[in-house]
């Protein structure tokens, strides 16, 4: 009993002191936690590669600015489970002095961590989570959503494909919230651009054989088969579509969420001709090439995905904001500073962070090259169209974010 009393007394004292504390770098160290999927289906596209990107950001920042900040990086595996993600976040913030949470794939985990981060007035700079709710009805003053979201994917791929003649669609949809949302968003875009949706099939999660669904897509005679799924589901459906001659028969596949690592896993023979939207590609310009080659040297020769690039750029911008106000404890204040400073990095170019937490930059519609077009390792995409920054993401007023007045 006595001990309990003492504990609460100390805790209360801590709270009181915390309230009094003025701007400073807590513990003298800026501690960054990379929370990711280290061993599951998203480990290749984020995971350990995201940690590499974060380390590069710290190194580059200190070298470029000569800043005196002490920066430390820790990482953990959230196993794509919201409860695991939130409890790691709590532990990190409460007892290990972590000042900022980075990466966080899987929409459900992202939204759960966002809530914890808001309650504790910390920060999440999210790169890999998908749901556009993050900067919509679930937006918080403590979160920045960096690389992409479902709205951008639907609009980027959807409208570009319709405009290039793909005006009839059939969807293969993963049967859970993410897949449904992606199908709904994309259908709207297709219809708004004058195309039509001929049908869709809801595929249960964990299906390994897509041939039956592909046959339905084939007999729909739709010009475009839209894949509203992710990860291994996408890989398997593309692989089997090629086997069943969909592409050879004149239909095109549109991957709504496809990463460079997925294309690498599929091989060009199978993936060729696929349309997809990303906000970063390693072979885009000299800046991205130089950075990606350094990344590859540290990560077993693998080129970075857009979300790993987002981890780098997001952390770089965070460090600028912390240095500018010499403060890392008051999360909302640092995020406000991040929104005030214009963003500028070699990977995403010049941009800004909107009041709802959405990072704004251009998006690119790519087509996967044929094996004959690919000249060197990881030469996978050709640029079809650039979607300017002001059109790539959902307009501020449409998101329903309470921070937008």
């Amino acid at each position: 009993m006595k001990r309990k009393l003492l504990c609460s007394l100390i805790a209360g004292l801590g709270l009181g002191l915390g309230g009094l504390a003025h701007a400073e770098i807590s513990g003298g160290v800026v501690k960054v936690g990379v929370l990711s999927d280290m061993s599951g289906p998203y480990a290749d596209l984020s995971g350990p590669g995201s940690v590499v990107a974060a380390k590069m950001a710290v190194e580059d920042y200190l070298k470029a600015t000569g800043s005196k900040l002490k920066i430390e990086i820790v990482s953990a595996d959230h196993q794509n489970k919201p409860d695991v993600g939130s409890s790691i976040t709590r532990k990190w913030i409460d007892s290990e002095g972590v000042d900022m949470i980075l990466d966080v794939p899987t929409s459900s985990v992202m939204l759960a961590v966002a809530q914890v981060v808001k309650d504790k007035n910390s920060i999440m700079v999210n790169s890999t989570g998908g749901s556009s709710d993050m900067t919509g009805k679930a937006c918080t003053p403590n979160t920045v959503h960096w690389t992409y979201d479902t709205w951008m994917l639907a609009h980027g791929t959807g409208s570009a494909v319709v405009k290039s003649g793909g005006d009839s669609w059939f969807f293969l949809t993963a049967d859970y919230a993410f897949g449904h949302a992606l199908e709904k968003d994309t259908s709207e875009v297709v219809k708004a651009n004058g195309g039509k949706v001929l049908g869709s099939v809801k595929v249960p999660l964990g299906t390994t054989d897509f041939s039956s669904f592909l046959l339905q897509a084939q007999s729909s005679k739709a010009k475009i088969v839209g894949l509203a799924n992710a990860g291994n589901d996408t890989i398997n459906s593309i692989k089997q579509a090629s086997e069943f001659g969909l592409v050879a028969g004149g239909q095109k596949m549109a991957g709504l969420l496809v990463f460079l690592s997925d294309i690498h896993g599929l091989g060009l023979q199978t993936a060729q001709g696929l349309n997809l939207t990303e906000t970063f590609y390693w072979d885009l310009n000299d800046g991205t090439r130089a950075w990606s080659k350094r990344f590859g040297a540290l990560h077993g020769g693998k080129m970075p995905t857009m979300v790993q690039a987002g981890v780098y750029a997001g952390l770089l911008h965070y460090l600028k904001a912390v240095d500018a106000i010499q403060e890392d404890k008051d999360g909302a204040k640092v995020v406000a500073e991040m929104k005030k400073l214009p963003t500028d990095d070699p990977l995403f170019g010049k941009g800004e962070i909107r009041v709802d937490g959405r990072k704004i930059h251009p998006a690119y519609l790519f087509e996967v090259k044929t094996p004959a077009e690919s000249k060197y390792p990881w030469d996978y995409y050709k640029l079809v169209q650039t979607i300017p920054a002001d059109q790539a993401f959902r307009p501020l007023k449409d998101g329903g974010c309470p921070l937008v007045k």
Partner: protein
Amino acid sequence: MEIFGIPVQALMGQLLIGLINGSFYALLSLGLAVIFGLLNIINFAHGAFYMMGAFGAYLLLNKLGLNYWWALLVSPIAIGAIGVLIERTMLSRLYQLDHLYGLLLTFGLALILQGLFRNEFGSSGLPYAIPPQLQGGQNLGFMFLPNYRAWVIVASLVVCLTTWFVIEHTRLGGYLRAATENPQLVQAFGINVPRMITLTFGFGVGLAALAGVMAAPIYQVGPLMGADLIIVVFAVVVIGGMGSIMGSIVTGFGLGLVEGLTKVFYPEASTTVIFIIMTIVLLIRPAGLFGAQK
């Protein structure tokens, strides 16, 4: 002509696809049934051996330059040999104990094997191309049948029926079945029962690896490919009757068909339909469709 609003042609295509998936179920459940029927071990590592079979094909191609046809032979033998090693060093110590110990051991093994492969090869899987001889496909009028899938049905049927024939209708099969009924007596006739059991386990594991090699060109070669399939395959074995060879072959193909039809009429239920059938079968015939009531 239409049946329940689905054109007959489309339905034919779906039935054929069901049959293809059924051939994988049959091949995998056959191995499980052989191992359970003759060793009384519930082999939860079966999915992991299937996965290793597929990786075997990938490694043979990329490290040694041996093509698909070699892999079909070499990979099952190599993985079967690993199975023999596991049986000798670990499983053979558990025969006197409850089923649960074997289940726990093989389940743990499966987790370890999957973890090792994930560490080494990543999670998004590796590509494996269809062998050039089997690329392309036939236009059957009602559907486009990839040549490779046709090959899978034929190969799987041949392997399944041969295995069934050997176990049910040859002298060797007779020894095996006798040894499970009464090992002491069979041993008394001068037959080396432990060696026979070891080889049987190796054979069952080899069957899983063979299914893995056949699956490699269709699915992504990934560390979790077996974990996705093994639960369904267990349901197949339970429905067919634990340990019944013919039961597992027939139910394997049959459930593939049922699943294929579900994918047309109500796709949302296609991953659950097999378990619904399992529940019904267990309620009516607890020993399974082909199992002997004891």
